[in-house]
């Protein structure tokens, strides 16, 4: 069940009424029950996986929390040195629990997502062990949202281990944090310290918040159904029929693909946040105008923010503060030129972070290449960024004006589009073909000779796409300055209703949905 199905709408309306009919103190239970039902509708077979992850992580957190509590109790009257020793001892006790739980849950995640690539060796092993059973790719269950809930659970585990958050004593409360239906399928990857606490607050009815939530849902639907799903038709056809398309069409497809992934994913996030808002729970912002970024590092601080923060906190920081990296820094600092030393120190944490991010997004060579691609750009940026800036100044470029910032934004977007070109066409071979064709066969008349309309979108459909892309751009630009929802709320009732009616009717008319059309699943659902 996805957000764009009728049955989800019915489910949401029913949950809404039951939620607000119930007394405030029981409302979190309504959310928990609704979330379990939501997940069970997606597939009963998935439920054991999330129960295993939630229960093992909760148990581990409970044990570690108790150890820390005992240690704190015991260290009240001890000297500072003794306190430190006791603290180290407690942490050592917890380390085993943390590591076992971490390995178990990462193992489940890896088995579900990557075992299909090792079916051959696994079957050979089973054969060698005398087992008559064999494994098939179809038999491997990939629970919905496993990457999201596993990462959320592990963030809790590590935060408890590092004593950043208190343990959760109630398992149902912890389960709700993981399985909470607005974010279970596509994120955002919430930290327990934030979402867990918000879910414990009194969830009271607030008319304005509910209406704002509904508006956000409608806006998400517009992005997803009118822009993303329409562009998806064109992009898929161009990349699948790449031998019939030419250079300039690949450029159009690459541009559309950037808009597509943004409209699809951020639209989905808007829906998730809007749905959560109507229940009085704020979800973390996952997109913060990424195309206004001046560098690729900034871009990834604004795009899929919660995932970036997760990798930063649980991969990048631990690796960059590891003994190995510290040793590299110590050994190269005075012997190598400054830039090279910086490169040597940064390479391992950046590469580890981005290759893992790539593999989190998907499996296969394309995602590995994607990780290497971003490692390259980020290392280039951190190592030579200052030099490039100096060069621009020496060439008397004004780096403070709007056109320079625009150049930086376009450059960042082009790098992002390059990354999409590695994964979207489906194989590196196809990517190479497309890049070569863009360089050697850029025939602009394909834009005017009708070829443009041979890939699933005719002229009116393309016009609608362009109009709504422009609308998306205007609203995004506007949102940087003020809250559009607040601005609309301040207008007269006729204008407001016209806006709301226009938005809903635009979705109903121009959206890609309904029978006969297999609405593509949200891109991030399978991760």
């Amino acid at each position, binding site marked *: 069940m996805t957000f764009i*199905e*009728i*049955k989800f709408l*019915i489910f949401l309306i029913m949950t809404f009424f039951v939620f607000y009919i119930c007394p405030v103190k029981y409302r979190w239970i309504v959310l928990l029950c609704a979330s379990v039902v939501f997940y069970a509708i997606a597939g009963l077979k998935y439920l054991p996986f999330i129960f295993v992850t939630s229960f093992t992580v909760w148990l581990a957190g409970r044990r570690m929390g108790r150890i820390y509590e005992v240690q704190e109790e015991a260290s009240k009257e001890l000297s500072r040195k003794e306190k430190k020793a006791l603290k180290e001892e407690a942490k050592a006790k917890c380390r085993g629990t943390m590591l076992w739980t971490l390995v178990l849950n990462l193992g489940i995640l890896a088995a579900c997502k990557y075992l299909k690539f090792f079916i051959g060796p696994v079957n050979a092993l089973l054969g060698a062990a005398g087992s008559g059973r064999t494994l098939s790719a179809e038999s491997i269950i990939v629970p919905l949202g496993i990457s999201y809930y596993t990462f959320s659970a592990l963030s809790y585990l590590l935060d408890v281990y590092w004593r950043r958050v208190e343990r959760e004593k109630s398992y149902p409360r912890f389960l709700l944090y993981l399985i909470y239906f607005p974010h279970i399928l596509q994120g955002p990857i919430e930290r327990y310290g934030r979402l867990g606490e918000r879910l414990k607050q009194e969830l009271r009815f607030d008319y304005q918040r509910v209406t704002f939530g509904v508006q956000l849902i409608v806006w998400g639907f517009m992005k997803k159904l009118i822009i993303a799903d329409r562009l998806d038709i064109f992009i898929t056809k161009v990349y699948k029929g790449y031998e019939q398309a030419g250079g300039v069409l690949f450029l159009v497809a690459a541009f559309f693909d950037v808009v597509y992934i943004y409209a699809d994913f951020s639209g989905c996030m808007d829906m998730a946040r809007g749905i959560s808002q109507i229940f009085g729970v704020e979800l973390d912002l996952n997109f913060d105008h990424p195309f206004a970024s001046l560098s690729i590092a900034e871009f990834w601080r604004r795009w899929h923010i919660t995932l970036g923060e997760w990798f930063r906190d649980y991969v990048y920081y631990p690796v960059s503060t590891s003994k190995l990296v510290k040793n590299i820094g110590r050994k190269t600092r005075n012997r190598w030129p400054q830039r090279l030393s910086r490169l040597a120190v940064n390479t391992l944490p950046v590469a580890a972070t981005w290759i893992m991010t790539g593999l989190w997004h998907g499996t296969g060579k394309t995602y590995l290449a994607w990780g290497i691609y971003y490692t390259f750009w980020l290392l280039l940026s951190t190592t030579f960024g200052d030099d490039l800036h100096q060069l621009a100044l020496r060439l008397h470029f004004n780096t403070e004006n709007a056109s320079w910032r625009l150049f930086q934004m376009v450059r960042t977007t082009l790098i992002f589009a390059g990354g999409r070109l590695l994964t979207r066409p489906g194989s590196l071979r196809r990517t190479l073909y497309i890049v070569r064709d863009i360089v050697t066969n850029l025939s602009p008349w394909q834009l005017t000779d009708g070829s443009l309309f041979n890939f699933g979108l*005719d002229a*009116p*459909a393309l016009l609608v796409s362009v109009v709504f892309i422009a609308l998306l751009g205007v609203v995004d630009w506007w949102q940087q300055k003020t809250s559009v929802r607040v601005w609309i709320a301040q207008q007269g009732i006729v204008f407001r*209703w016209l806006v*709301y*009616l226009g938005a*809903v*009717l635009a979705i*109903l*008319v*121009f*959206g*890609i*949905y*309904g*029978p*006969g*059309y297999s609405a593509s699943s949200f891109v991030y659902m399978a991760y």
Partner: protein
Amino acid sequence: VAVFLVLLAVCVTCLSNLFINKWKRFCYESVTPKQFYELDQDSVEVLFLGSSQATLGISGMKMYEDYGISTYTLGSPRQPMLGSYGWLVESTKTQNIRTAVVDVAALYYGTLSESRYRQSLDNMKLSLNKLQLIYEHCKLNGNTNADPFFSYIFRISKYHSRWKELTEEDYTNDSVYQPVFRGNVLYSDSVTIDLAKLAYDNDEPEEGVTMNSESVQYLERMAQFCEENGIELLLIKVPRYDWSITQHEQVEAFAEEHDLTFLDLSSSDTIAKIGLDENDYMDKKHPNISGATKISAYLGAYLKENYDLTDFREVEGYDELNYQEYCDRVEDSYLQRATDVVEYLQYLKNDRYDILIQTTADITGYCTQELLDTFEALNLKANIQELNGQTYVAQVNRGLCVYEAVSAGRQVYGNYLSDGVKYTLCSTYAAASTPAITVDFESISFANKGINILVYDSDTNRIVDKSTLVCDETSGGLVLQKENEKNAM
């Protein structure tokens, strides 16, 4: 919030009606239910159900005209038996149906496309009956997902992608209007058919012919529903080429098993009794107006004889619906179907018509007395026997000559028809880039050979007939050449 939701619902309903597929070729399925719902309570006693064969082949007006039987046909193209069952149930909500007559073609349908279900059910009012039918249809087709079910209720979800193909017709709803006479659509076109092939008893028995289980199931439910509601159920088969003796025998066995009457109109004897001739069909399956009239006359007599039905001609206040329009259309069909010049000229003398005449060849030597008489009857004064190479244009409005001109060269003339529609005439013997005749700014195609005659009905805003009287060098006279397209009347 409530007011906003009501406003939203109104907008969505309006958009649904705008976007719903008008099924341009067979738009009667949207008109038929609409008119049915507008009927007076308990004003229909005989209900016909079935596919396009029932819709085109059964003339309720003819049965009313001859026997006073009040009928209505609820059919759609390849209407599934599920749809017929649904409409039977629906009809009993407002009508006191005494006899339900089902054309059994649907018993032999293969897997039907979704559009056939849509055409049958889309225009049924929302009710428990409709919800039940949609649910059963989705279940039968293995659609466990809720979205297809809701798409029948919120029709915009099915048809919204038509936004880029909307035309003026979708907004005005004018040109999609197709006259439906108690559920019957009249076609005047005809093809020459082989009556022997129309009859099933000339066929050899076939192997492997089976009834569609879904259709059987719904026909059985119809039988049960009729029994429970005191309705007589009659099975019929309107003759068609691919109806076989095996199918006839199977339906006969089914009828016997369920204690039903099966009246197969496709035997050689019955076809002879009906009086069908080789020009009575518009294709190999569908009777034209002539065929429908003959079949309905036969069927009306059968119904009158075997069922206790009211003679509504004697019922005061009974709504004849568009009976006069039906009579006009029958009259039009004579003009449209005429193949003989004399006969054609006779039917041309009708005060209902606006007539546009224009020459594209010198007809001086080919004029017949009938043509001259007709021109006189139409109050045309020019002596066309003495044109001698001159061009001629004329306009007759409802029997009165409005304009007439003879000229040595090319003539272009424009004016208005009785209903205010603009027309132009361009008369020349040389090939010209200007269209011979335009009506409402649309050019009308004609042969470039003789006298072009366009007949227009200003009451219903439509072109009734386009013919050319062509000079035939062999016979030395005029022959009739038709330019009509295959459209419903």
